[in-house]
């Protein structure tokens, strides 16, 4: 799908508002919504996985070894749900 933006003439927009690139919202960054930031303290993390599914913004990457990595700050909106569910204090909101 060609790049579409607010300057695209009508002739070049997809008809009906169709999108042929499923999941392209990944290109829309929501990190600037954040007013507080979660900090991942890997040394405290036990990889229990409780935070994996709770992030509304899919901003906690989980690798094939079933371990979480640092936050995707391009997407994290700073809601703090992950920090609250962590039993080990491995996520701090700053």
């Amino acid at each position, binding site marked *: 799908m060609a790049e579409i933006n*607010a300057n695209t003439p*009508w002739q070049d*927009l997809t008809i*009906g*508002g*169709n999108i*042929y690139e499923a999941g392209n919202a990944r290109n829309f960054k929501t990190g600037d919504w954040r007013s507080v930031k979660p900090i991942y303290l890997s040394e405290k993390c036990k990889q229990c996985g409780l935070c994996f599914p709770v992030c509304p913004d899919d901003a906690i990457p989980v690798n094939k070894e079933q371990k979480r990595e640092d936050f995707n700050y391009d997407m994290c909106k700073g809601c703090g749900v992950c920090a609250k569910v962590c039993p080990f204090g491995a996520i701090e909101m700053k």
Partner: protein
Amino acid sequence: MSIRERLSGNEAAATAMKQINPDVVAAFPITPSTEIPQYFSSFVSNGTVDTEFVAVESEHSAMSACIGAEAAGARAMTATSSNGLSLMWEMIYIASSLRLPIVMSLVNRAVSGPLNIHNDHSDAMGVRDSGWIQLFSENNQEAYDNLIMAHRIAEHKDVLLPLMVCQDGFITSHSIENIELIEDDLVKEFVGQYKPEHYLLNDKEPMAVGPLDLQAYLFEHKRQQAEAMRNAKKVILEVSKDFEKMTGRKYGFFEEYKLEDAEIAIVCMNSTAGTAKYTVDRLREKGIKAGLLKIRVFRPFPAEEVAKVLSHLKAIAVLDKADSLNAAGGALFEDVVSGMYVSNIHVPTVSYVYGIGGRDTKSDDIEKVYNDLSEIVKTGKIDNPYRYLGVRGDK
């Protein structure tokens, strides 16, 4: 060789649908179109068609299901009338804005209220700005032929708009008349396979349909729809030409009946044209140069072409079988006069609202209109351009 039959308008529509063999039909019963899904259900039950029939719980759901099916990659059809179309109204706009070439058989009936089950065109007129192509049919043959042509027009890549084929409730839907049917294999070949470029069920290219389309985009998407409607004019003529090659039956934007040398003429749609033709013949016998313009393609409206064929007349009456209740004449009247005005053609033209709620419109009524036109020609005066025909209490 074509097949000679005797069918009602509803049977003709159901027969066309059977020959088209759509993937999905979703419909809900409403008088006078009920018979169409009824007949069609028996084709489904007996395995005559490959269609999945969705017996929905409302017309709103009928159109929603058609939208879902068409977006999924299927050919979807439905039939309805009157309030059924009113209940669909929200989805009618969505169907066209999503550019889904759904085909509907609309059996015209008065929209409530008060409740009335008989024919007028208020249902179709209620969606005239919705972005659907609207074809009108004088009789069962035209209702059938228009349906056979429908998918070729609607699915054309330059069009991709939904299409409704209108016919008059009871007057043609329930009247049995002679009809020439086309052989199944010829229809199949003519209609062809539906192969959308993008569709929901294509797992190789998942797609999303029906976004939130904000200030930066909706205008452009509407502009695309407008262009598609303009393109439809050309496509309708091309498809009609192909259809003529197959059947010998000629279709255009409209039918001119003894219009060429006429001095006065009526413009109307659907079954009234039959009555008007009979009246024209009677008047011609008396030496009155009466003519008729029967509109087949109401959306897109062939404004320029209509203006051109009416340009030589001395007086015109536009008959609307629906009142716009706007104090300024019926919808067809407005389109005709604006078309003429833009083409710089100035012929005295009057609006007649007639036949509301199934009020019978006989040849004598039509003759009265021609008499009124003769009077206008004679006196050069139009006292009241917004007239009613056949209502009690008006002179």
